[in-house]
Structures are given as C-alpha cells and as structure tokens.
C-alpha cells in the first residue's frame, strides 16, 4: 500500500492566460516529474504548493496536514529555484544554514548539519566558499543542500538543470536521483525536458494550458499517451487518419486477429512511435513481419538523418509523413514500412495539436 504525502484537491486558479486546475495525490517517497511547454502552469503549481501564490479554491494537504492557509514560512517545504537563488552575500555554509539559523538551532548543530549535507551532495569542504566562486553545477548542488537543510517533508525542484550543459545535466540527474533515494523525500520535479522526466521519475504529470493531460508511470506515458498532445510532447511519432487501416492492414491467418476495426471513424486518428516501425528496403524480398500489422509499401525516403547508432527516416506515403528509426541506411529511395497493430494508439475526435 502507498501512503499519500501531498494531496492537491480541486485546486483552481484563474489567470488572464489560462485557468489552472489541479487534482493530484503524490505518494510518500515518490519522485514525480511535472512536464509541459513553457507557460503551461508547471512553475505556478510549485509556487501554489509552497504558498508563494494563492489558489482561488481547493485544498492542499501535506502528510495529512491541511496547509492551504499556512503562510510560506511555516510550511517547511524545500525548494530549488531555477536560478538557484543562492544569496550572494552569504558563504556556502551560511546559505545552507539559513533556515537552521531562523529556527534558532545551535551553532555546533548547524555546522554538523551543513557538513552532512555537503557530504550528501558531494561537495565536502565547501563551507567557506563564496557563491560567485562556484560553477553552475556546484551552485545547483548547494541549492539542493540548502533546500534539504531543514528536513522538509516535500522537495520541489523548478527546472533545476535547465541552466547547465548537456553533460553536466546527465551527471546531476543521476546525483539528484541518488540523493532522492538516500533521503527518501517526496519530490516534485518540474522540467521541460522529456528525457529527464522519463529517466528520473516514478510518475510523470504532463500539463498543458493549466490542465493535467496525463499522470502516470513513464512507461505508460511513453507507450500509451492518454492524449495526442501528450503523445507528441513526450517524443517523436506519426499521426495518421484511422481511415488508412483498411488499405494497409495485413492480417496473417495464423495469428490471432486483434484488430478492433470500426468503419465509422473518419475523425479518428492513430499514432505510433518511430522505433515501432520496421523498415525494409528491398521490395523483392518477403516482408519478415508475421503478426497483424499495417504495411506501407512504396514509401519514398524524404530525408535520412544519422543520429549515432540509428537513422531517423522521414518517409512520404500517400501525402502523409511517417517517421521511422532504422539500423541501416536504405539502399533505395523506396522502402516498405510495417507497424504492428499492437503498437498503435487510437485517438477519437481530437484535433492535432501542433
């Protein structure tokens, strides 16, 4: 059984641009990513939880305690800001001990706690450093240590890696994951990077225009996106009208026919990821697929990008574009593409969001 930690129920806030509505429960010790385009309300969500912003209605409870009406400074929620917001007039040690000092904790205890936290983030001996002497990655870790100092019940991270280069991001991603496992603290992690969201989280919340699009495990989000919007936001893929199924379906007699085919679906759409597409560049050879699948013959290769380890093909087929990964570079301009029926996701009556 999971014990819930943070519950946001029926939260609504109106802004000129959009209305944010939230309804979610985060389990104790869980790491939840919130992902969405800029301006979708992810940072606003964090500010509502900390109390820096106020909601129009709804309640927020943390570990069973209603914190909706508590002022920010009493909530004891750790937060790492996008720009880290480390105080430049204080040393590393004083930054980390800021909340401890406010709680009137003894000097020796403060020093010990700072030492532990620096050890946790792997920056032993940094106590006397000035903020402007630190690199971006070091600042990020000090900000994390400072947020954890008062042993909060909830940790919020607002795009903590967005200011760093790709290599440092991957490194710190692992470290945040490690620290999360070591402390077991319930964590909300805001990001706009889908790779970060997929690799780090127990669950992912996809947001758009202040609305929760999907809240599920990374695997479910990637493989079975709830909406076309979530599907496109979490990675590459192809959208085709449902109506192409009859002309492309190859049903093998031996296999179980799993296709639930509805003929009335003009507005229906299908979606599949490029890695689910099988590419075959010799039309004279037999197609190796033996389960029910859609087969797109005589698709023309429009572009072929080498991505290191694989090629991303953009193929044209009957005025549609199909994305496919291939291990080899096609020898011909014309290829045959195949997608298993099981790998299709179906959407009803939805406008393609682009």
């Amino acid at each position, binding site marked *: 059984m999971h014990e819930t930690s943070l519950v946001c129920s029926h939260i609504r806030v109106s802004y000129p641009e959009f209305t944010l509505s939230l309804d979610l429960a985060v389990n104790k010790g869980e790491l939840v990513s919130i992902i969405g385009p800029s301006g979708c309300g992810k940072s606003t969500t964090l500010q509502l939880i900390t109390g820096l912003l106020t909601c129009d209605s709804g309640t927020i409870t943390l570990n069973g305690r209603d914190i*909706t009406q508590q*002022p920010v*400074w009493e909530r004891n929620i*750790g*937060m790492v800001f996008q720009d880290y917001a480390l105080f430049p*007039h204080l040393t590393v040690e004083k930054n980390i001990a800021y*909340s401890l000092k*406010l709680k009137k904790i003894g000097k020796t205890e403060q020093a010990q706690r700072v030492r532990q936290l620096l050890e946790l983030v792997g920056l032993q001996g940094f106590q006397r450093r000035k903020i*402007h002497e630190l690199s971006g990655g070091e600042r990020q870790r000090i900000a994390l240590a400072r947020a954890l100092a008062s042993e909060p019940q909830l940790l919020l991270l607002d795009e903590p890696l967005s200011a760093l280069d790709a290599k440092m991001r991957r490194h710190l991603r692992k470290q945040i994951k490690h620290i999360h496992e070591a402390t077991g603290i319930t964590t909300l992690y805001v990001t706009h990077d889908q790779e970060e969201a997929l690799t780090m989280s127990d669950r992912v919340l996809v947001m758009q225009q202040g609305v929760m699009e999907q809240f599920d495990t990374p695997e479910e989000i990637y493989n079975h996106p709830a909406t076309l919007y979530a599907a496109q936001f979490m990675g590459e893929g192809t959208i085709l009208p449902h109506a192409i199924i009859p002309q492309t379906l190859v049903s093998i007699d031996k296999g179980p026919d799993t296709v639930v085919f509805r003929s009335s679906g003009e507005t229906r759409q299908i979606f599949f990821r490029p890695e689910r597409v099988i590419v075959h560049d010799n039309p004279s050879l037999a197609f190796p697929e033996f389960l029910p699948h859609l087969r797109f013959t005589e698709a023309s290769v429009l572009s072929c990008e080498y991505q290191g380890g694989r090629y991303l093909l953009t193929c044209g087929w009957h005025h549609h574009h199909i994305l496919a990964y291939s291990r080899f570079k096609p020898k011909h301009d014309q290829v045959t593409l195949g997608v298993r029926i099981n790998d299709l996701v179906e959407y009803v009556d939805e406008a393609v969001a682009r």
Partner: protein
Amino acid sequence: MNQKAHTAHMPDIQRDTARFYRTMSAPALVLLTFLFLIPVGIILSKAFITEGGQFSTERLITLIRDPYILRVLRFTVLQASVSTLVSVLIALPGAYLLANFQFRGKSIIRAICTIPFVLPSILVVLGFVIFYGNQGIINTAFVKLFHLSEPPVKILYSFKAVILAHAFYNFPIALGLISSFWEQLPVRYDQAAMVMGARKWTVFRTVTLPRLIPAIISAATLIFLFCFSSFVILLVLGGGPQFTTLEVEIYRRARMTLDIEGAAALSLLSIGFTILLVALHLWSQRLLSHQEEIEQIDERRRGRTPTSPLATISSILYLVLSVIFVLGPLVGIVYRSFQAPVSRSQEMVFSFVWYRQLFGFDRAIGSPLGIAASALVTSIVIAAIATVISLFVGTLLAARLRSKEAGKGASIELYAMLPMAVSSVVIGLGYYLISSTVSHSTMVSRTLIVLAHTVIASPFVLRSILPEYRKIPRSYTQAALTLGATVPQTFSSIDLPLLRPALATGGAFAFALSMGEINATLILSDSSVVTVPIIMYRLIGSYNYAGACALGTILILCCAIVFATIERVRRSSSHA
C-alpha cells in the same frame, strides 16, 4: 461548500509583502511630504496671495512682462545652453576614446567622471580663481616662463569664466554617461554596416550617432538643469548685474531687497523650467532603457589598444588635458593653502600659517577664518544627521518601489524625485520663509539647514539605491520565504545586506552633498549658523583666497574620502 470560506482567509504572500512595504515606507513618504511640500507650498502661497489675502496671478503676470526679468531669463537660458553645448562637445571625443580603446590611465578618466557629483560648487569657484585668476597658477606660470609684464589670461568675472567653470564642472557627467552607453552598443551593428560597404565615418554618422542620441540628450538635459540652477558660480564668477540669472535674482530679492513676494513668484518660474527639464531627462532615460531592453547586451565592444599613432597621441592628449582641466584647480587649492608671503615681499614660501589661523593657534582678528574650526564641526554634524535621515527615507522608498510590479508605482517614484526638479535655491527660500515664521534660535536654524539638506540629498540616495534594489532577483526573497523567513526577515537578512554597497554609495553622496551645500544654506542661514562653504564664500568675498584654500583643502579631503568610498564600492561590486 467551504470553498468560499477558504477564499476569505487565504494567505496571500503578495498581499502580505505589499502591506509590509507599504507600512514600512509610510513614515518616509510622510517625512518627505512635510520636508518638501510645505516649503514649496509656502512659496506658492506667497507668489499668488496678495497682502489683502486675495488670490491673484497679477504678480506673476507683471513679472513676466517686466523687461528686466525677461533679460534675466534670456541670459539664464543662454548661459545654460552654451555651457551644455561646450560640455558635451568636450566630452564626445573622450567618450569615443573611452568606449573604443583600452589604454593606460583609462580608469583615471573614469574616476574623474564621478567627481562633479561630489565636488561642492564653492570649490569649483575657488579652484577656478586660483587656477585661472589674474594672480592664478596659469598666469604666474606664463609670466615666469615668458617674462611677461601682464598676465595673459584675463577671463575672471566674465561670461567666458562662467562657461568655462560650468564646463569644467559638468563635462565629466557627459563623458561618463555617453561613454558607458557607447561601450554597451554591440559592435556587430558597426560590423554589419562595414560589411555592407560603409566607411568608418559613415558608420559613425549612420549607425553609431543615431543610437547615441538618447544618451547625449540624457546628459545634455541633466547638464542644462545643473547650469540653469547654478548659483554660486554665477554669484562669484559672474560678478555683475549683466550676468544675473534667475537663481541669483531670487537670492538678491529674498536677502538683499527683501522683496519676498517677488522672489516667490520668480521661484515659481524656476520650478516650471526645472520640472520641464527633469521631465525631458526622464523621457530620455526611458528611451535609453528601451534600447537596452532590445540590445540584450550579449557581446560588449572590447576596448582594443590604440593601433594608429593618431589614436595613441589623442588618447594621451585627452587624458593629460582632462586631468589638468579637472584636477588642476583642485591641486591648485591645496598648493596655495600652504603658501604664504614672506613679510614685505611678493615672494611666497611654504607655510602652515593659514591652518594655524584656521584651528585657532594663530589669531586671525577680523577674519572669518577665526570661526572656521567651529564651522567645520557644524558642517560635519549637519552632514551626518542629513545623511542618516536621507538614507532612511531613500531605503524605505526604494523598498516600496521595488516591491511593486514593473510599470507600477511610477507616481511615487516621480514624487520622490520631485525635490530634484526644484533647485536648491528655491528649497532654501522655502525654508527661509518657514524660519521667518518661527522664533529665532541657533538650534532652529541648524535644524532647518539639516532638513533642507535632507530634501536635497534624498532623491540622490534613492537614485543610488533603487537600481541596485531592482537588480536583486525576486527568487532570493521567495527562496528565503520557503526556507522559513517571514517578510520582515527577508528584508533584514537578504535585502539590506545585499544593498550594503548601494547604501554606502548613497550615504557617501548624501554626506558630500550636505558638506558642500551652499545654495540653500546661503539663502536660509542667518549669521548664527555657519558652515564650511559659507565661510569659504565669505573668505573669497574678502579676497582672503589663501585662507579659503586652507579650508577648501579640508573640504577636498572630506570629498576625497567620500569619493574613495564610492570608488572602492564600485570596484568591489564590479569584481563580484
């Protein structure tokens, strides 16, 4: 549902914060209102209300029709225009050199640019007389070098003297403003123009100059404002009725012919002009900030070392000349303060005699130098108190203005800057009118001087704090709040420590302004309270230049300390 009930009691941190800063700044606003609006209000009432207690614009209308006043006005505008033009023209080549080249001594020119803001105008007057006067350093040098019988430079007490003194005082302002803006213009626009086939001069004319114009307007309006309300320089160096400006006329009527109503009506004219100038200045600054927004300064032009001999020579020449032009008179003051004639001869020798008189070791019977030591103490005490109050006012107002969202609070900012738009002579007149309604005592006079100085200094303090305050990211405050700090705690533990350099700069400015303030003090004070600049004025008036130099040296020392503080803060904050 209990949702409605929730809405009523929601903790709203933004509302709390706004309330905190509003409450905190209220005393500052009230104080500023009392200190500024009351004196100005009294002036206005004197200008409009007749002896019978009737409201009338008649006095103002007669004044505007008076050919004498019209001549005064014309001269005021003329001298300010010429002074501004000369200052900007002297500054432009220097701004070009500073913005485009890296050379030794650049930091010296940079430092010179801050001098006018802390240099008391009485020192400008004195330095000018010592340096360019008939017995001045330049003339003595020429006479000795070329064995002349007559001093070759005769510009004292003329229009030229006024212009030259104003240029000396103000060109560094233009130099600082224009060069710092020029430096930030991205080079790629120049490069783009050159790639498209524009020659250097064409690039300057078609790309650089149009973009510099807001900076030039900004500098020019400020200098025009300063020259328009310049007072002591005209009073001493102008020296004749044909060189009377509006401010001098106000002083003359208030303190010599005792035509208070006339002085009040003239003040109204002066306020009208200066408000117009300040509005122009603010508008040009807005233009500048718009440009900066668009720039997103990614690559600044890097100063290169001058390659052509022409650039080398001109930068050295500019450096040497500006140092002589600005520092020469000040060095002259210090030098002359240690010179005294040997008895019954023209020969001058090194001597401490003026300082001994100043501090009362030698008796200086009948000379104002005798009370100089006590004036020094008075000046320091007045400046210290005025500094503390204006720091208080400036910080609280800055805190409130910063807590507002961008674009809001413009009216408070304008209001707080208003004392800048009223010349110190007019503020002095306002306090003089107040002092004539209360009983006379030294304490009252001193208090009024402190208050007048506070009004004059507060906008400068606000100006040095507010931009720095606005640079503090809001996330710092938010981070402190999530770490458990209450709103007042974020102010004391985050804002104030981060503002320490700005507070030091603002405080130093306020102290220097008050130490050197003479315009308001001269109008306001009776003989009971004397400050250092007043004594210097009296010494110059009685042709005791050497004594004035000794006192001036001490004033220079005070300003130098202030100046060093500002420079140190500026450097340490640019390193961080």
